């Protein structure tokens, strides 16, 4: 059965040993939730790879947020480029310059803003979509009567249809049809990467639905919304959380790919866009490695960090995944 829905198994705490201060039940519940969060943090801190991922993400996130403070936006335009074209890395330009003379380091830091934003937003869209589809299909499939089973089958067939479509081709098609812009990229990615989340959430939902406490909630008179919102969603959330962190990496890579293929918004700077610019300007054949390697490395590092975080979260909520150390 699915261990991930259980709270961190610390065994029964000795009952009655804690001092009982008279507090309102809600305050008590909040305190208990805080304690559970603390346990989660302590478990997470024990995962070294997860800590590394988290640190690197925090650093990158901080740089992206504070970029306007130390990068002059005028220097990022083609016309306002501070240096000459294709300068090799130097003290002034640690990663060299591009064909227009812009600092590659600045481009990379500035590009992280779009790449991260698009990655996170697209993930949000796809996780929301996948969770909604998964819970609806799972819930109505197991306890919705005949109509519910039909609805569930329809949702899952649509999911399967999206699942077998090549994600990239689909996203390219969407990006080509919709007006150009960052929003389009978010939508194109969000609409294509949700099916695995839906399947995962549905499986988890079915496991939760089989629990007697869901039956109890129904026998108490709870409707579909009650069961889905109060029992299924909280028990599915840990899995969704882990899936989210893993999906961000996918989304960032998808964004870069689209931008690299020229589907991105040409007016914004993103990692994929920088790569594409490097390709079209002939940096690859000219051997201008400092134009190509840094954006690629940036994508790899962020994707890796998110994956490490996702795996760490997964191993905390599902101790069985923790291999022998």
């Amino acid at each position, binding site marked *: 059965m699915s261990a991930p*829905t*259980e*709270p961190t198994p610390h065994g*029964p*705490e000795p*009952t*009655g040993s804690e001092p*009982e201060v*008279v*507090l*309102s*039940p809600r305050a*008590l*519940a909040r*305190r*208990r939730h805080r304690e559970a969060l603390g346990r989660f943090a302590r478990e997470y801190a024990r995962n070294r790879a997860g800590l590394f991922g988290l640190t690197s993400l925090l650093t990158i996130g901080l740089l992206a947020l504070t970029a306007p403070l130390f990068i002059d936006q005028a220097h990022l335009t083609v016309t306002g480029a501070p240096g000459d074209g294709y300068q090799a890395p130097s003290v002034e330009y640690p990663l060299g310059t591009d064909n227009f003379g812009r600092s590659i380091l600045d481009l990379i830091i500035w590009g992280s803003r779009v790449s991260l934003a698009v990655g996170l937003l697209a993930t949000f869209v796809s996780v929301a979509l996948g969770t909604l589809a998964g819970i609806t299909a799972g819930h109505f499939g197991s306890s919705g009567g005949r109509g519910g089973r039909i609805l569930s089958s329809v949702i899952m067939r649509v999911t399967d249809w999206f699942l077998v479509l090549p994600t990239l081709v689909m996203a390219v098609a969407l990006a080509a049809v919709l007006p150009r812009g960052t929003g389009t990229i978010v939508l194109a990615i969000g609409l294509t990467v949700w099916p695995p989340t839906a399947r995962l959430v549905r499986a988890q939902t079915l496991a939760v639905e089989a*629990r*007697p*406490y869901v*039956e*109890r*909630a*129904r*026998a*108490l*008179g*709870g*409707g579909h919304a*009650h069961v889905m919102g*109060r*029992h299924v969603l*909280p*028990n599915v959330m840990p899995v969704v959380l882990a899936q989210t962190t893993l999906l961000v990496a996918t989304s960032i890579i998808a964004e870069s790919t689209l931008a690299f293929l020229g589907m991105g918004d040409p007016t914004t700077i993103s990692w994929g866009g920088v790569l594409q610019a490097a390709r079209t300007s002939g940096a690859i054949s000219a051997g201008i490695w400092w134009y190509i390697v840094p954006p690629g490395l940036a994508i790899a590092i962020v994707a890796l960090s998110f994956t490490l975080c996702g795996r760490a979260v997964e191993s905390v909520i599902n101790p069985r995944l923790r291999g022998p150390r």
Partner: protein
Amino acid sequence: MSTDTAPGRPGAGPRARAVPILSAESVEVAFTAGFAPGGGRGTARAVDGVHLDVAPGEIVALVGESGCGKTTLARTLLGLERPTRGRILFEGAPLRYRSRDLRSYRHRVQFVQQDPMGSLNPRRTVYESVVEGLRIHEGTAVDELERVERALSRAGLRPPERFLSRYPHELSGGQRQRVVIAGALVLDPEVLVADEPVASLDASVRGEILRLLLRLRDGLGLSALVATHDLGLAWNIADRVAVMYLGRVVELGTVEEVLSAPAHPYTRALLSVLPDSGLGEGPVLLSGEPPDPKQVPSGCRFHPRCPVLASGEAERAGVADRCVGVDPAILGGGAGHRVACHWAAADESGRVDEEAASNR
């Protein structure tokens, strides 16, 4: 063929005449293929025509082996399963399955499940679990905390404040089952439907939970239907008992009638294998397992395993042909001792002698 062997017992009289608060009327629940793991195709009739009444303030035990349909019947009475035929009556009015009707029904009829660990959401505190029913039916009430605490202390968790912020895994099995019962009591229900309420509890705790159910009946006038495999439980708390076999009630009556003077060969066999059974005879071991509800035997559904038929006693009573060929009529659900057995009907006089002997 049904027989009323003890019509109009004075004790059962007044109670029986009241309108039953909850009853099943020729209820049939069938599952189509894929229901049983490893099972073949076909329709499994888990409940196959059952009449059963629960009078106000009465505790009825529904007894049978696993797979006899008692859990399905309990779930059907709660509206969790829809009967394929027949209907459920609550206070004489048929239960309707629109979600509004079900909601108001579930305000008044509550469910206590078998496994108290599983029936509480592990992520929610005792308070959150108990208040759930209130929130569903009445939203956030002002006196919520008060009512939760009252329900907890009624269920024997005292002082209630000590338990409010606990999680299920911090409670003992008995305490968990009390939390489940408190979650049912918080809505002031009129009927409890319990499915094996003590089967997963320790022996010493079992008695305490049963005593709680009895106290709720005596103090709050709660009616209850308890599905169980445990005949001792029926003896401990029930007023009437219905014995189920393969989707049918085969014997029905007061606990004293059915358990002290069983008439159906199946009931007799069940009682005879209990340690220290009060019946004078040795254990009657039925061969084999309960048959498949997808292939109900023709005639009396018990006849392939019936010791009375096997020993030739049914032949002597002249009913053997009917046992094999005629399905005994479905029993009425109200008061009175009823048996779905051709042999018991034919062998009335002989059986009464035995009854006297076994009563000692």
